[in-house]
Structures are given as structure tokens and as C-alpha cells.
């Protein structure tokens, strides 16, 4: 679960990390109260998941009430649901600081750079020597000497140094407590009077740790499309693309490989949908979602062990009967119970293929109007 900037900043603030003063405004309401409280100049920050918000015009710096209203209307007009109205800060320096994991040596990895504001990927590509790395082994805690080391290397002094030590310890605590995959502050601003303020915040919580973490409700702004949002609410992994072959596959690895094969044989995928794992008995919902992006053909490929082929085949039969899709469906449902699956599919006139490439080629041909 990737949090919105404002949610990340809420966690920061609760934990004692200074963030700019701000008010959250929903599309459809008025920005006046917010700007009255924050004053001018201030910044309107679209709460969307998309990266590069600045370049995309999703962050607007405003100096007057009328400008604020105008930009607010502009942003909500672009579909933004939530806007963070934030005081402008007096920036002396910008720092990058983040915590993530290193899966090879099992450590928690702190990355920092005095070149804040830049994307870490960009930084890693262009100035790798500017990235300060500090590691904390599994079972160990971040020690104060390590935080001092980072702050000395960042060139902080005085108050900013002391605040930096505390801030990093706090970030680390949040990272561990919240089962985070990433906690990032970029930029961490050193103000003109030598204080640290978290001007932005990224926070990704491990979905697998949901059972021991506070839950955030899913919101439309976390997704690129309505269908993805709705599928996520149903617990069905779904991604929307602009092709015409709808995929219903089981197994993440196999689905990826089918996606590749469709491209390999010249086709284009309309959607990626995982019809395996806990969802293998949910053929009807899966097919409903697959049909929503208007594919020309549905390609169903599985090779399951727990997800039984016969159960999935029966599900497809039921879905076809219920939904009456007016497009061709190609199946290669293999694995446990595959002979039974062949028979079941035959009852509605489907020939269950055994070779994956044959199935993909057939789907590509059908999408191109062949048969």
C-alpha cells in the first residue's frame, strides 16, 4: 500500500518529524478556508500516486487568493480528488533521505544525499558517489553513531545536525513499526534559519503485513483507471492496457510470460488479470472485469497445481453461460485435473489447447480478425 503524500506526512507529524503547515481540501469544496489558514504564498499539491508531479503541472505555487482558486479549479478539473494546501517554505538546502531494504544481506538500508529534490534513480545513474549508504542488519537497531555519520556526511551542523539525528532515528522507527518497504523524504529541506522540514513524503507499507498494521482504505486516486480500482476492491489483481487481447491467467510468473508471448507474436494486451491463487473459483467476476476493457478476444492460460484445471474450466463454462461474451475465447487450462477440464470445456464447444504458444498465436490471429 503506497500512501499519499498527506498520509505519509500525517505519520511523520505524529512521530515528531516537522512537516509544513497544511490543510487538505477535497475536490468540490472551497479552497478559501485552507488558504485563510495557511496564508500566501502557498502550494497546491495534488494527492495522486503519479511520479513527477511537478513536471506534470500537478503542483502549483500560488501567491493570491484568485490564483489559488484558479489553480484549484484547474487541478480538480484534471480529475484530482484531493489537494494538499501547504505553506511555502524558506529553502536553504534540499536533502534526499530514504529507508528501504537490502534483500541480499538482509539489512535495512538508509540512503541519503545532499543533492535533494532529485529522483534517487536519477541520482544513482548520474552521481552514484553522492549517495550515502548506511545499513542496519536484521535483528539490530539503528545506532546513534550511524545517524551521526550520515549527518556529518550530509554536511549538517548545529541545530540541523541534531534534528537530523533525531529525524533519522524516527524514520527508522516508523520504517520498522509500520512494516514499510520505503520511507522517503525528498526533499528534506534545511530552512534559512537552520531547521529541518520534510517537504515531501513517500511511504509504502507492505501489503503482506496488513494483519498487524493499521488499514488505509483504497481510494480511486491510487489507481490509473476505474477498472483497476474496482478490481482491487474485489481482491483481483488487474492492470489495464490499450490492446485488444484480454488475459485471464493463473500464476504471476506464467501471466508475465503470456504477456511477453502476446507481444512476441505481434498481439497487444488489453488487460492483465490474475485468475489463479485465491481467485481460481471466481471465473464469473474475472471474466466480467476482463470484458470491461472491450477486448476482441479472451485468452485463458493456466498450468495449476492447487488451482485445479477442472474447477477453472467449470467456472469458465458458467461465466460464458451467464455473461454471453460475444467475442472468441481461447483456453489452455492445464495442470491438476486437466483431462476433466478438456471434457468440461467441450460441453460448450471449446477446444482446450495443451500448448501455450498455440493458444497465444490463435488469440493474436483472432484479435487481428482471423480465426
Amino acid at each position: 500500500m503506497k500512501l499519499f503524500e498527506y498520509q505519509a506526512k500525517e505519520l511523520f507529524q505524529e512521530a515528531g518529524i516537522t512537516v509544513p503547515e497544511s490543510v487538505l481540501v477535497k475536490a468540490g469544496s472551497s479552497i478559501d478556508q485552507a488558504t485563510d489558514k495557511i496564508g500566501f504564498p502557498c502550494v497546491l499539491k495534488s494527492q495522486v500516486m503519479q511520479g513527477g508531479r511537478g513536471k506534470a503541472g500537478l503542483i502549483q505555487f500560488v501567491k493570491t487568493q484568485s490564483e489559488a482558486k484558479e489553480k484549484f479549479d484547474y487541478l480538480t478539473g484534471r480529475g484530482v480528488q484531493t489537494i494538499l494546501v501547504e505553506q511555502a517554505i524558506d529553502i536553504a538546502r534540499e536533502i534526499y533521505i530514504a529507508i528501504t531494504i537490502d534483500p541480499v544481506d538482509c539489512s535495512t538500508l538508509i540512503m541519503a544525499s545532499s543533492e535533494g529534490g532529485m529522483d534517487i534513480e536519477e541520482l544513482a545513474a548520474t552521481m552514484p558517489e553522492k549517495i550515502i549508504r548506511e545499513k542496519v542488519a536484521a535483528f539490530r537497531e539503528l545506532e546513534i553513531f550511524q545517524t551521526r555519520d550520515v549527518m556529518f556526511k550530509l554536511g549538517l551542523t548545529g541545530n540541523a545536525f541534531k534534528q537530523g539525528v533525531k529525524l533519522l532515528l524516527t524514520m527508522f522507527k516508523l520504517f520498522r513499526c509500520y512494516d514499510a518497504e520505503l520511507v522517503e523524504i525528498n526533499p528534506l529541506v534545511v530552512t534559512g534559519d537552520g531547521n529541518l522540514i520534510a517537504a515531501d513524503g513517500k511511504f509504502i507499507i507492505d501489503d503482506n503485513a496488513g494483519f498487524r498494521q493499521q488499514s488505509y482504505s483504497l481510494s480511486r486516486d491510487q489507481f490509473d483507471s476505474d477498472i483497476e480500482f474496482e478490481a482491487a476492491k474485489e481482491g483481483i489483481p488487474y492492470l489495464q492496457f490499450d490492446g485488444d487481447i484480454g488475459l485471464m491467467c493463473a500464476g504471476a510468473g506464467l501471466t508475465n510470460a503470456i504477456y511477453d508471448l502476446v507481444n512476441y507474436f505481434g498481439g497487444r494486451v488489453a488487460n492483465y488479470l490474475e485468475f489463479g491463487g485465491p481467485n481460481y473459483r471466481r471465473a464469473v467476476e474475472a471474466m466480467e472485469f476482463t470484458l470491461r476493457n472491450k477486448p476482441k478476444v479472451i485468452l485463458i492460460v493456466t498450468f495449476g497445481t492447487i488451482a485445479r484445471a477442472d474447477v477453472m474450466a467449470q467456472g469458465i463454462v458458467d461465466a460464458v453461460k451467464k455473461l454471453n461474451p460475444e467475442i472468441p475465447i481461447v483456453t489452455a487450462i492445464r495442470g491438476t485435473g486437466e483431462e476433466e477440464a478438456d471434457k468440461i470445456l467441450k460441453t460448450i464447444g471449446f477446444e482446450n489447447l495443451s500448448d501455450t504458444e498455440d493458444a497465444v498465436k490463435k488469440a493474436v490471429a483472432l484479435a487481428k480478425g482471423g480465426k
Partner: protein
Amino acid sequence: MSIFIEKDTRVLIQGITGSEGSFWTKHILGIGTNVVAGVTPGKKGQKVEGISVYNTVREAVAETQPDASVLFVPPKFAKDAVFEALDAGIRKVVVIAEGIPVHDALQMRKAAMNEKAMVVGGNTSGVITPGVAMMGIFPYWIDRVYKQGNIGIMTRSGSLTNEVTAMVIKAGFGVSSLMGVGGDSVPCTRFAEFLPLYEKDTATQAVVMIGELGGTMEEEVAEAMEAGIFTKPLVAFIGGRTAPVGKKMGHAGAIVSGGQGTVAGKIEALEKAGALVADRPSATGELLKEILKK
């Protein structure tokens, strides 16, 4: 011969009385695995498919001396179960559970490293030596996939493994040891860590690696080959060649960020190190023939 589980490997099943545990116990026994005990806290005295159940791994170890343990426990208890196995002196563990928190996985891998143990998984089908024994959930009864032979297979995937392995068998080969590294972003054992075992395994003539986008495991394999740690022929299939950057497609581990973990980068590194890389599953068998002719 196998790199992990032999005919006589004494296997413990943790979580044996659960629905998954008891279902797969039948099949694990079915292939011929030497299962010596099961554990479910509070179920001591019960039997599952004739296997005695104990309350704790320590008890099971004291009574039946297992060498290895396969875990059918929910993801939220996987860490505890791994620690329990390690604590009791077991040095080979397979974790099937999908959905283990990343922070737990870090600790599991670290604990395994500290104890010089091999923990395989999570989010894996497990480990199988076709025709001999398995610790995992493989449909070993599907002949066109699970046939004994001389090819080691290591994989991040489940269904795709069936797909690719079927191609290996179709080309006339069989499998020595199949190791499911698991689809998570923090697998407890990484591809490159299996290589020294395959290298010295006389039953393994070549290795097929089923990788995918994301992470650096395939690059580490290339490094091991360059370093001469692994010198046998290796054929790879890497899924996700055309996957859109930044989208989490499928496995937790399958995400590309910051230019790291791209399929193109993996292929380049592997080919430079002397591996052959299949552009689609069906090519795997042909490439194996080609590389073994050299």
C-alpha cells in the same frame, strides 16, 4: 542424487494437521518421501496419514531426528515456524506460504545465514527430486512435467515452472533437483546460493533457471558464472521482457525500479557470462540441446 532432498532425507512437516498440510502430506508421502513426523501445537498424539504429530519441533526432533522440514503454516506464522525449526537444529527448511511480510522474510533469511542453514521460499512450490521425494506442492503425477533426469531447475515461479519444465521434458531431458526459490522480493535463499550445490552434484549436467524481471538474483547468477563458482551449462528463461516499467505485475519480487532488475540487463549479464537465454518457454529445450552439444 539431489542437492536438497534424497530418498532417505528425514522430513518433518510443520502445520501437518491443517487442511493444506494434511492434503499435501498425502502427496508428499505418495512420491516416496521419507516423512518422519509432523508438528501442530496442541495436536500431539494425533496421526496424519499414519505420521505421528507432536506439539513442538523440539519434541519431534528428539523423537524422530528429522533433517529437513517443510512448512504448511499461514504467512503470519511463517517466521515463528522457521525460527522454531532452526532452533531445534534443522538446517533445511522449505516455506510454502505466500504473503509473508517483507520484514519477517529479512529476519528469516538472516537467521538462516547465522545458522548456516538453507531456508527455501517463501511463496514457493518447494523442492522436488522427481521420482524420489519432494517437500512442496508439485503435481508430480503429471508425467510430461515431472520426470527424473540430469537437468537442475531453479525457479521464481509456480505455474510457469510447469510450463517451462514441460518444454525441457519435451526436448528429451529430465529433472535432477527442482528448487523453487519463491516469488517474493526477499527469498530466503537466492538463485546464486544454489549454484555451488548444483556444481558439485554429479546428477546435474546443466541448469535451467526460470527468472523474471525485478531484483538482482539473475545478475548474481551471472556473477557466479563469471567468478567460476558455477561452470556447468546454464539456460535461462526470463519472464517479463515486455512488462511495463514501474507496474507491480504479479510477484512481489517482479517490479523494476531505478533501472535495476530489467530483463534486458539480466539477459545481457547472463549471455556475457556464457549462459543461453530463451526468448520464450518453448525455446528452452532447444537451447539446452545446443548448449550441451558444445
